[in-house]
């Protein structure tokens, strides 16, 4: 079985790794690149714990082959904080206690970031629909939604300033 050589950009940095045809991007991120923030909750596109942004689009990395990543740009949860400084979404998740076990949190944060990148002023309904592909068994979603709405408001202020 021949290995496939992949060069891609992950969180702004060029990366290279070897993979095989059937390996998912999620497994390559975790096992080859040691980026274990993206989680596998289901492996079937239902839970969103594996969410990454691929060439600007929110996707499930469990339903992407690592081999497809050749030349592509990938953003994962590991790229969200800048140095030691949390992204406003991360800070608001803490402020609003929007996580308990935390398994869904990297996926929710990446999905919420993709939302605010595309739409800085979403309604609550838009936010709930956008995040419908991210399952959380602990929080009941309400605190998550409040955290995202609050982060959106803060980001709008920062941009306006």
């Amino acid at each position: 079985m021949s290995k496939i050589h992949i060069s891609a950009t992950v969180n702004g940095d060029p990366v290279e790794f070897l993979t095989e045809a059937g390996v998912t991007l999620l497994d390559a991120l975790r096992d080859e690149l040691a980026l274990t923030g993206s989680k596998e909750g289901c492996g079937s596109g239902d839970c969103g714990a594996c969410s990454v942004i691929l060439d600007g689009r929110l996707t499930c990395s469990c339903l992407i082959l690592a081999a497809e990543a050749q030349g592509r740009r990938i953003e994962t949860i590991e790229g969200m904080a800048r140095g030691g400084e949390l992204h406003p979404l991360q800070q608001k998740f803490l402020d609003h206690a929007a996580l308990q076990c935390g398994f869904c949190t990297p996926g929710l944060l990446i999905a919420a970031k993709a939302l605010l990148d595309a739409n800085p002023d979403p309604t609550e309904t838009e936010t709930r629909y956008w995040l419908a592909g991210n399952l959380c068994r602990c929080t009941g979603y309400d605190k998550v939604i409040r955290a995202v709405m609050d982060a959106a408001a803060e980001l709008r202020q920062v941009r306006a300033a």
Partner: protein
Amino acid sequence: MADLDYVAPASVAGAIEALAGGGAKVLAGGTDLLVQMRAGRVKPQRIVDLKRIPGLIGVRQENGGFVIGASTSGAELGEHAALIHAWPGVVEAVQLIGSTQVQGRASIGGNLCNASPAADSVPALVAARAICVVVGGQGRRELPVEAVVTAPGATVLAPDEFLLEIRLPPRAARASDAYLRQIPRTEMDIAVVGAGVSLTLDAAGVCSEAHVALGAVAPTVLLVEAAGAALIGTTLDDAALDALAQAAEAACRPISDKRGTAEYRTRIAGVLARRAAAIAYRRASERT
């Protein structure tokens, strides 16, 4: 997954050659294929990723109609203003597929070629009278959307053939479409029934052409000609809508499963066809 091979050809000819040996599966967004492979339901020896072929992703306008690359995702179609203006029903149907994450990858061609009776975009495409352009070792052929799927999970495509693009015909000034589905939840579920309606009005607002298609009520998506005919020559008054609903119900051959009984599906098919027709009519009347 031993002995699996991945190729991403950069041309149509390269893809046909890669498919020629047999045992291969075409990959678009992978939201059906990778789930099926993981479950062990399909075991290809080779994956042929179409997304690097020029034209497979994207929408272009040609001779007054639209040409949609087979691997174009729902998210991309949802950003195409001219397509939404001309074919709002097709776009809303594609955009019902899955979550935001799934939309980022799920393609219109994959939705069709996966051959599920409940595929959301298919009734809208059938009602739109869309044409599929298929390429393969024997050359190129064109066929109507409803001729592609023959049974759940089965298509007319030969092992070395694939869907290149979907063509939507030119649109009259006062024409529009709509798609509605019924699901037991508010998001992230499979259609119990789907109904697509496309119609054209004359200057007086009288329906001059109408097509109705139903999903999830038979092994394949149904083009219900009698339901479309019931609307022609009318302004979609109650009598016309009753006749449409009756024709839609009469065409149903559904199964009963955990999402709904056959009786429920049949009844809902009439209701949804009626509502979708009313939406398409309103859109066509308001179109400028």
